[in-house]
C-alpha cells in the first residue's frame, strides 16, 4: 500500500552528484583526536582516563552517566594528552578527551571476544549495544539502547529504517546502502529480534536507485523486510514524516514514534549495530560525506570519531579559496563551524563546504505575508505568525500556536523570500521558554 506521503515540504537543489558515486574510503589516522564527552542526546559521559594514560583503539575513555547516556571509546591508540574544554561542533566549548595518536601503532583492536549475537537474549543484545556506545547516526544521536527498550505498555509492530537522506549534498547513507547492503540487513535482523517485531520497511528516496537495487538484491528470504522508494522531498527523512509516508500514521503532537507502534532508526545506525557484532568494536568511527564546491576532493570517508575538521579537510584536498562556510550536517539543519579544530562526532553525518553562490543571500527584508512558509511547513504551523511573535518576544503566544511541534527543519527559512531567519527565531524562542520553565 502506498500512501500519499506527507504534505508540504520543499525541494532544495539536491547537489548530491559531487559524492553520490564516490566509493567510501578510509582516511589516514590524524595526529590527534578529540573525543567530546557529550556527543549524544542525554547526560554527558564521565571521563575515566587521566592525562598521560595510554589507550588502545576501542578502549573505554568515558563511562555512561545514567540510562540516558552512552560510554565513549578511544578511536585511535595513543596517549591521553589532556581532558579539557574544546570547541564543540554545536558552537560551544565542551569537555573532551584529547588523545595524541601514536604514529607507530598498528591501530589494531585489542584481542577481544566477539559475542555471537545469535546466542544472546534481547536484553543481552541491548546491553552489548549500550556498552558499544551506539547512538543514532541520523543526526540527533539519540542513544539507541533507549529506543530498543520501549516501556512495557507500548506495542511496537514495525521497524522503519530511515534511508531517506533528504538533506542536500549528503551521501553517507546512500553509500552505506549501496556498498554494505548485507550489513544493513544484518542490523535489521538483530533489531527485529530485540524488538520482537515481524515487519521492517526501509524507506529510501528514489534518487538513489543503486542503493535500492543493492538492498533489494540482498533481501533476506526469511524476514518480512521491504524496500520502499519514496518521493524526493525535504524533510522526507524526519521521522514523523517518514512514518506518515510509509505507514500513513500520524504521530500525535508531543508523542514519540513508539506511541504509534514504530521504532525509526537510521540506516547507518542499523549498519553500525551489525558492525558491533561483526567486529566487536564499539562505535569509534563513522562514515562522513565531505563535500561542497569549497573543498578540493569531495569524498565519502570512514572517519575516526574525534578527527578535527582541519585534518578531515586536508584528507579531501583542503579548502578552496572560494570556501565561505563550513557546515556540520546538511545545509538545511546543520551548524556552521567557527573553528577548524572542532571534531567530527558520532552524530556528524557530513561536512559541507559552501561557497558564496551556494549560500542564501544575507540581505533580509520585512515579511510580506506571502504565505510561502505556511506552504512549506511540514507540520502545518504558521511560521509567519510565529516569526512576528518571536520578534516581539511574545513567547507564550508562540506556545499557544504550537511552537512545540516545530522540529526546526528549516523549510520555512529556506522558502522565505524576505530571508527572515525563522528557524533561528524559533530555536531562540524554544530556548527562552525552556529556560523560563526551568526557572519556574
Amino acid at each position: 500500500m502506498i500512501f500519499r506521503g506527507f504534505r508540504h515540504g520543499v525541494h532544495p537543489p539536491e547537489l548530491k552528484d559531487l559524492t553520490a558515486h564516490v566509493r567510501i574510503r578510509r582516511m589516514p589516522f590524524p595526529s590527534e583526536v578529540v573525543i567530546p564527552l557529550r556527543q549524544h542526546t542525554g547526560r554527558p559521559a564521565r571521563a575515566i582516563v587521566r592525562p598521560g594514560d595510554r589507550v588502545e583503539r576501542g578502549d573505554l575513555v568515558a563511562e555512561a552517566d545514567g540510562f540516558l547516556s552512552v560510554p565513549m571509546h578511544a578511536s585511535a591508540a595513543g596517549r591521553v594528552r589532556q581532558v579539557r574544554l574544546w570547541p564543540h561542533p554545536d558552537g560551544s566549548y565542551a569537555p573532551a578527551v584529547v588523545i595524541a595518536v601514536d604514529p607507530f601503532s598498528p591501530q589494531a583492536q585489542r584481542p577481544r571476544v566477539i559475542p555471537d549475537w545469535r546466542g544472546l537474549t534481547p536484553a543481552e543484545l541491548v546491553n552489548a549495544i549500550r556498552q558499544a556506545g551506539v547512538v543514532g547516526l541520523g543526526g540527533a544521536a539519540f542513544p539507541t539502547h533507549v529506543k530498543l527498550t520501549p516501556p512495557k505498555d507500548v506495542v511496537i509492530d514495525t521497524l522503519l529504517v530511515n534511508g531517506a537522506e533528504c538533506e542536500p549534498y549528503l551521501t553517507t547513507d546512500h553509500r552505506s546502502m549501496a556498498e554494505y547492503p548485507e550489513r544493513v540487513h544484518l542490523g535489521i535482523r538483530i533489531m527485529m529480534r530485540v524488538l520482537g517485531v515481524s515487519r521492517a520497511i526501509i524507506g529510501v528516496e528514489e534518487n538513489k536507485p543503486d542503493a535500492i537495487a543493492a538492498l533489494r538484491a540482498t533481501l533476506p528470504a526469511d524476514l518480512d523486510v521491504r524496500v520502499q522508494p519514496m518521493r524526493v522531498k525535504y524533510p522526507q527523512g524526519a521521522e514523523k514524516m517518514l512514518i506518515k509516508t510509509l505507514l500513513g500514521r500520524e504521530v500525535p503532537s508531543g508523542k514519540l514514534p513508539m506511541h504509534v507502534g514504530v521504532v525509526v532508526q537510521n540506516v547507518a545506525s542499523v549498519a553500525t549495530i551489525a558492525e558491533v557484532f561483526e567486529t566487536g568494536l564499539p562505535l569509534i568511527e563513522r562514515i562522513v560525506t565531505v563535500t561542497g564546491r569549497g573543498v578540493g576532493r569531495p569524498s565519502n570517508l570512514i572517519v575516526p570519531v574525534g578527527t578535527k575538521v582541519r585534518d578531515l579537510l586536508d584528507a579531501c584536498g583542503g579548502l578552496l579559496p572560494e570556501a565561505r562556510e563550513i557546515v556540520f550536517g546538511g545545509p538545511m539543519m546543520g551548524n556552521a563551524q567557527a573553528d577548524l579544530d572542532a571534531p567530527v562526532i558520532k552524530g556528524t553525518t557530513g561536512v559541507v563546504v559552501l561557497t558564496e553562490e551556494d549560500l542564501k543571500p544575507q540581505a533580509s527584508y520585512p515579511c510580506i505575508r506571502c504565505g510561502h512558509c505556511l506552504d512549506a511547513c511540514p507540520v502545518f504551523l504558521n511560521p509567519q505568525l510565529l516569526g512576528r511573535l518571536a520578534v516581539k518576544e511574545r513567547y507564550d503566544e508562540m506556545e499557544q500556536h504550537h511552537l512545540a511541534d516545530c522540529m526546526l527543519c528549516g523549510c520555512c527559512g529556506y522558502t522565505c523570500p524576505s530571508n527572515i531567519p525563522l528557524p533561528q527565531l524559533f530555536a531562540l524562542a524554544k530556548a527562552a521558554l525552556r529556560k523560563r520553565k526551568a526557572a519556574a
Partner: protein
Amino acid sequence: MSQERRLLITASPHLGTRDSTPKIMWHVVLSLVPVAAAAAYFFGASALLVIAGALLGALLTEGAFAGWGTLRDGSAVITGLLLALTLPPGLPVWMAFVGGAFAIGFGKLIFGGLGQNVFNPALLGRAFLQAAFPVALTTWPVPRGSFWQLKGDNLALPFTHPHAVDTVTGATPLGLMKFDHVPTEPWRLVLGTTGGSLGETSGLVILLCGAYLALRNYLNWRIPASIFLTVALLAQVLHALDPRQFPDAVFMLFSGGLMLGSVFMATDLVTSPVTNLGCWVFGAGIGLLVVVIRLWGGLAEGVMYAILLMNALVPFINRATQPKVFGHASPRAAP
C-alpha cells in the same frame, strides 16, 4: 589562518530559494509594463501623464518618509503604477499625485511600511481620490483621437478644477448596463476598446501577465480563480433568472476593473490571507461583494470596495483558517 577568518557563521538553513522580495516585486512591475503599454496605446499621452503623476506621488512619499533606500524593493513602484491603472485617463496629474502620496503615506507607511499594512495601498489611494474628487473620478473619456491629444484636463493647475476639454466622454460598459441596461459586445470588452480607467481595458493582456506571475508562484492563483468562479457562477444564475436586468458572466468578468483587480490587486501578498483556504474564502468574498455592489449598489463598479472590504477581513480570515497542525486532532483552537 586568513582562510578561517573569511568563514561565515550563519544560522541554518544555509540554502534558500533564489526568490527574494525585491525580485518578486520587480517581476510584478515588469508584468505591469504590458498593461501600462496597452493603456498608452489606447489613451495616448494622457495615460503616461497620469502614470507619471501617481508614480511620482508614491515614490516621493516613500523616499521622504521611509528613506530613499526602500525604493529599491520596488513595492512603491507597484503601488504607484497600479493606482494609476485604476484612474480615468483624463484625470489631472495633480490628483494622481495626491492619490499616490495618500496611498503610500496613509495606506502603507503609517502601518510601518512594507509588509505591515492592512489595506491595499493603491486601492486605498483610489478610494480616497474617488471620495475627494468624485466628479473627476467618474468622467470617462472614450479611447479615440491622436496619441498627443489629451483625453481630459490632465494639466490642470494643482488644487484647481479640471476644465472641460474637447473630447468625447461616455459611460463605461458597466455604467451603460447599470443605468441604461445597454450591454456591450463581449469582444470589445476582451480587447479593451471601451471607455474606462487606464488598466481596465484589455482583459487578455492582464490575464497573460497574471499567468506568468502565477507560474512563478509570485501570486496565489487561488485568489483570482476563486473570484472568477464566484462572479461567473452568481452572474450566470442571475442572468438566467432575468436576462434584461442582469448581465451574463462574460460581461461581468471582462467589464470594469475585475480583471486588473483580481489579478494584480486582490493578490497583493501583504493584504491577502496567508493560508490557501483563506485565499479561497477571500476570493469568494470579493466575488460576492462585486456582484452585490454592481447589481444592487449605488455605484456602477464595486471591485475596489470589494477588495478593500475583504482586506479588512483578512486578519479574521487568517485566524479562522489556520490549518490542522500535524499530530493534532482538530484545527487549533483560536486562543
